[in-house]
């Protein structure tokens, strides 16, 4: 933008009052014009600010709605993100249902001993932790036999009790439990039974999934 005044004065000549006044009026007009432009710009800025605030509000509302959505509504890109996270063990994997006989008609352990089984050929290779569903049945064979049975793994210090039998009272017991298994992929069974070969075990893995 170029600014200028109507009259220019040369050194050594007289300045006429009406020409000087005309120059001042021109300057005042330019100032007024500039002020008007500033006011208009401020008005536009306020309008933009309101628009930005409205967009932010809409975004917050949409995010709140998304938080309550079922994951099934995710689009392909969203699913890909979740799958990548699952592969990186960030979230739990899908359940894989596959039956695998661990022990069939095997004499249960006596107190102080363990029956140890490897799930290496059942679970995928790698060092992930898996949640394994184990189904177990116990049969009390010998008279007077008694036994409380439990599963264990290298991942935990506790035991998961799955049944108690007593010949003459409870000949059979069955249960299904979930046991977390680590990279050793070993499952242990123990009991407080004192008679060798008195109780028979039937144990199968029926499913697993990778967990964090």
């Amino acid at each position, binding site marked *: 933008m170029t600014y200028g005044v109507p009259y220019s004065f040369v050194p050594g000549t007289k300045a006429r009052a009406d020409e000087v006044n005309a120059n001042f009026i021109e300057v005042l007009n330019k100032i007024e014009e500039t002020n008007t432009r500033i006011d208009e710009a401020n008005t536009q800025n306020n309008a933009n600010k309101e628009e930005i605030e409205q967009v932010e509000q809409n975004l917050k509302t949409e995010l709140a709605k998304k938080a309550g959505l079922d994951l099934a509504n995710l689009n392909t890109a969203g699913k890909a993100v979740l799958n990548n996270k699952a592969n990186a063990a960030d979230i739990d994997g899908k359940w894989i249902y596959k039956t*695998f*006989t661990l022990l069939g008609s095997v004499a249960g352990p006596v107190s102080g001993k363990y*029956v140890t089984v490897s799930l*290496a*050929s059942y679970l995928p290779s790698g060092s992930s932790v898996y949640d394994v569903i184990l189904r177990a049945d116990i049969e009390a064979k010998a008279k007077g036999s008694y036994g409380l049975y439990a599963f264990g793994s290298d991942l935990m210090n506790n035991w998961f009790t799955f049944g108690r039998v007593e010949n003459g009272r409870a000949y059979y017991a069955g249960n299904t439990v979930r046991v977390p298994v680590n990279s050793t992929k070993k499952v242990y069974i123990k009991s407080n039974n004192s008679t060798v070969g008195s109780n028979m075990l039937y144990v199968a*893995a029926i499913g697993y999934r990778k967990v964090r």
Partner: protein
Amino acid sequence: MKKYIFVQDGKINGYGEAIQLTEGVQNIEVSEDVYNEFIQEPLKYIYADRKIVENPNYENEKQREFIEKRLDEITQELEILDAKRIRAVCEDEVKSERSGETWLDYYNAQIYDLRVEYKSLEAQL
């Protein structure tokens, strides 16, 4: 999927698809046919010469198993009848007015038959 028959202390001790890591247990890999047959008829196979082989004494052992199972059933039936006889002695009631047979007579007759069967089976062992 591999199939195993487990051997412990020189004797077969069950089967499975997983390897047992129990101390003293051998995992002997067998064919699917042997594995399935073993599940149905455990007496059909034995452990000999570090292998799972057909049991040459299978028929006799199967008969023996049948007898032992029946003897066990008879024992349990006799125990139940003994409890019934105690009640029959205490209550002393007639079961059939026409024949005059008491409940005690009725249970005694059943016990007699079972004991005859028991002795007969026991002699075959």
